[in-house]
């Protein structure tokens, strides 16, 4: 598919050939047509017919052409860490108030800030890094790639004449290292095509299913005075809001009405299509028990209200509730399709590539999730009387409520029973306290491993808090992503939660940006002095470390890092929270700091738990001891 698209963009094949090819690759005709349209440049007629100002001629350096095209596409923020070669880009912004620069001092943080911003808004995140810093950026690009987040990652590459001469900091084909985790990568070929190339990059990144793309612009082209045509976003943005085929939707509606034991699963495409409200309306209309993921993969946004009586937890091949599922509707969950014995499976997905990929799907539908849900609601209403629907929904809801109200009691009991962690703080206790502390419209940014145990104690979705995590859990994302989220929603409380491991993976650098830009987020480090979940995973396979009872890899407590002191070194105030009784006051101080426009960090002394948690044994090794001379 990628190859077809490349040929098309390079004008090697016709639009008809592209559509045929895409259909052959499994796309519906409607979807293939929409994709072809999305990829094609506007026709000369469309350009001519555009309102005045929508297309305009521009003269300036290549760098200025680039930023003017970004601005015309609605880009308001550029996250960056500069080098020398990209200076023309920043020079062009000296008198350009429409674009705000946000600096990160490590490229992973730069990408994570852009990614957090893009997840929160659905808009493109733009990150510009030094070509030599590109590998630093790539770790975090994996999060964006796996979760289909639109990111334009750009760098200035070496001047064209110098390519291949082993110049300072030159390494050849640098862009190809981005290939496995970007939808496409380009090197701008001439100064006069920078505008067009930039549009292409934006469109590739933003056209659903979205993805990171990589664009490099050679240093000499950035400096060169050039001319370009700048297009407004409307002229090259095709949002892929595809309506499903009517027949398919009617069939789905009928199946869901007639089902004896239906189930709806849901995932991140609901969020990406902004279809949360409609999803809940559909579930209510039909009394559909709603199940999400058990991990974060395909489920980093928890779009269905977790407090809703129809929300039953995770989706499994064999559900224990509801029993004997006979119709399973998957709404935008990449990993929601499961081989459920005895169930007919309907899967509505925006991304055709991962639709019907592993499990049998009886009715695959490619569509915008929100539009498909609206159509499904209409179809259901047209197929049965109000009274009948109400009866069906009430029946199903009653059964679901019997289950979910018991589960809520169970979670509450676990929270109560584990509120005392002795000398350290239990995760359960912190979860319960956070639920009380967080505003109802807060945004919870989650970059943790064993910290996911806290999730059930908090409510997300609907009128409640918003959850933003990452599917693949490439850690070191959270504090920087929190800045991107706060930038997008300055009037909402933002909490970033990271583990001690995940703090160390990003390093303290995100703190620099938090302080520099006065981003009033609260940052919690769940400090259990360990890769806690990692050790549990390793020991549970019963290997040599487990047998010997010695943890060779996961203990972090030596040196015992003082994260609050680290934060202070970066100009972010913070404190250690050692015991459960201190949580409330510490959170109140965090809130106060945020209200005063300052970020805050809480280094929370969390209990290590699970297998091998008790001892602090770790292999001692001293390089100093290897010395024969005290130098």
């Amino acid at each position, binding site marked *: 598919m990628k190859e077809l698209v490349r040929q098309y963009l390079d004008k090697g094949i016709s639009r008809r050939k592209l559509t045929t090819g895409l259909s052959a690759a499994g796309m519906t005709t409607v979807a293939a047509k929409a994709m072809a349209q999305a990829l094609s440049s506007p026709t000369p007629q469309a350009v001519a017919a555009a309102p005045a100002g929508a297309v305009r001629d521009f003269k300036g350096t290549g760098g200025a052409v680039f930023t003017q095209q970004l601005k015309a596409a609605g880009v308001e923020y550029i996250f960056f860490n500069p080098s020398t070669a990209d200076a023309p880009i920043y020079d062009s912004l000296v008198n350009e108030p429409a674009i705000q620069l946000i600096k990160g001092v490590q490229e992973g943080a730069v990408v994570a800030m852009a990614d957090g911003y893009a997840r929160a808004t659905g808009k493109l995140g733009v990150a510009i890094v030094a070509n030599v810093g590109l590998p630093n950026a790539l770790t975090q690009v994996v999060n964006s790639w796996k979760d289909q987040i639109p990111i334009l990652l750009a760098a200035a590459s070496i001047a064209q004449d110098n390519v291949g001469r082993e110049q300072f900091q030159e390494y050849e084909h640098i862009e190809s290292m981005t290939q496995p985790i970007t939808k496409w990568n380009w090197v701008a070929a001439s100064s006069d095509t920078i505008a067009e190339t930039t549009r292409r990059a934006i469109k590739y990144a933003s056209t659903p299913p979205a993805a990171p793309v990589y664009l490099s612009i050679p240093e000499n082209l950035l400096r060169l005075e050039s001319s370009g045509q700048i297009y407004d976003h409307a002229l090259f943005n095709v949002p892929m809001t595809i309506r499903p085929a009517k027949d398919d939707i009617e069939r789905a509606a009928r199946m869901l009405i007639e089902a004896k034991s239906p189930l709806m699963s849901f995932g991140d495409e609901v969020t990406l299509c902004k279809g949360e409200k409609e999803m809940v309306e559909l579930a209510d209309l039909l009394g559909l028990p709603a199940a999400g*993921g*058990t*991990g*974060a*993969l*395909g489920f980093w946004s928890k779009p269905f209200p977790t407090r809703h009586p129809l929300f039953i*937890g*995770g989706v*499994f*091949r*064999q*559900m*224990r*509730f509801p029993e004997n599922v006979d119709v399973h509707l998957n709404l935008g969950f990449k*990993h929601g399709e499961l081989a459920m014995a005895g169930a007919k499976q309907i899967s509505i997905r925006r991304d055709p590539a991962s639709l019907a990929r592993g499990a049998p799907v009886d009715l695959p539908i490619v569509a915008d999730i929100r539009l498909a849900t609206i159509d499904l609601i209409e179809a259901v209403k047209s197929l049965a009387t109000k009274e009948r629907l109400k009866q069906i929904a009430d029946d199903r809801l009653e059964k679901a409520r019997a*289950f979910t109200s*018991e*589960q809520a*009691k*169970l*979670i509450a009991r*676990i929270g109560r029973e*584990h509120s005392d962690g002795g000398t350290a703080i239990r995760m*359960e206790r912190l979860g319960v306290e956070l639920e009380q502390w967080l505003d109802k419209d807060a945004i919870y940014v989650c970059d943790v*491993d064993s910290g*996911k*145990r806290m*999730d*059930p104690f908090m409510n997300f979705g609907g009128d409640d808090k918003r959850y933003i995590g990452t*599917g693949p*859990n490439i850690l070191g994302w959270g504090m920087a992503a929190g800045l991107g989220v706060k930038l997008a929603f300055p009037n909402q409380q933002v909490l970033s939660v990271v583990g001690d491991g995940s703090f160390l993976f990003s390093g303290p650098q995100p703190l620099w940006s938090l302080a520099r830009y006065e981003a009033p987020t609260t940052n919690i480090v769940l400090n259990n002095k360990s890769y806690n*979940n990692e050790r*549990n*995973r390793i020991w*549970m*396979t*019963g*290997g040599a470390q*487990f*047998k*010997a*009872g*010695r943890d060779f890899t996961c203990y972090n407590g030596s040196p015992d890092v003082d994260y609050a002191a680290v934060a202070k070194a970066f100009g972010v105030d913070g404190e250690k929270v050692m015991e459960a009784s201190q949580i409330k006051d510490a959170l109140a101080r965090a809130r106060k700091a945020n209200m005063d426009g300052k970020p805050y960090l809480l280094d929370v002394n969390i209990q290590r*738990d*699970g*297998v091998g*948690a*008790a*001892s*602090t*044994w770790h292999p001692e090794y001293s390089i100093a001891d290897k010395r024969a001379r005290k130098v």
Partner: protein
Amino acid sequence: MLRSIVFTGLILAAAPAAAQQVQLPPGEGRDIIATACTQCHALNFPTSLREGPAGWRFHVEDMILRGAQIKNSEVETVVNYLASNFGPGVNIPPPATRVSLPEGEGKQLVEQRCSTCHELSRVGDARLARQDWDRVVAKMVSIGAPLTDDEAKTALTYLQKNFAPK
């Protein structure tokens, strides 16, 4: 079930599969476990592992917090099943290595009580700092090691004396 303490996500659960599937003996609760616990991972906790009710409860509740579909009304049944079929002293495989511990007060106690869940070699191999022995013994008791308070103290003193870091 235990292994899953571990799993971070649907797919990640496919981490290294070291062990053979654990065979579940018949009993009330078996079918719940056979369904609820195998949706995300195989039942492959180390077959030699044994814990008491409090230990098993931690793992069961941990799984529930991570999404396992075990109902409120079933928790006790599941914990009881695990503790009686995979509890201290139940059906433990013969030790792979013979361990002889140094003489001293507490030796017998450690030999008898500390080998009911795992091999004694784990005790013999460990060389832990004082406060770590404190924590380990407290943890063993909390997950079901059959020792009274006084016995635990005796065992602790013995371990701290004989198994300090070299």
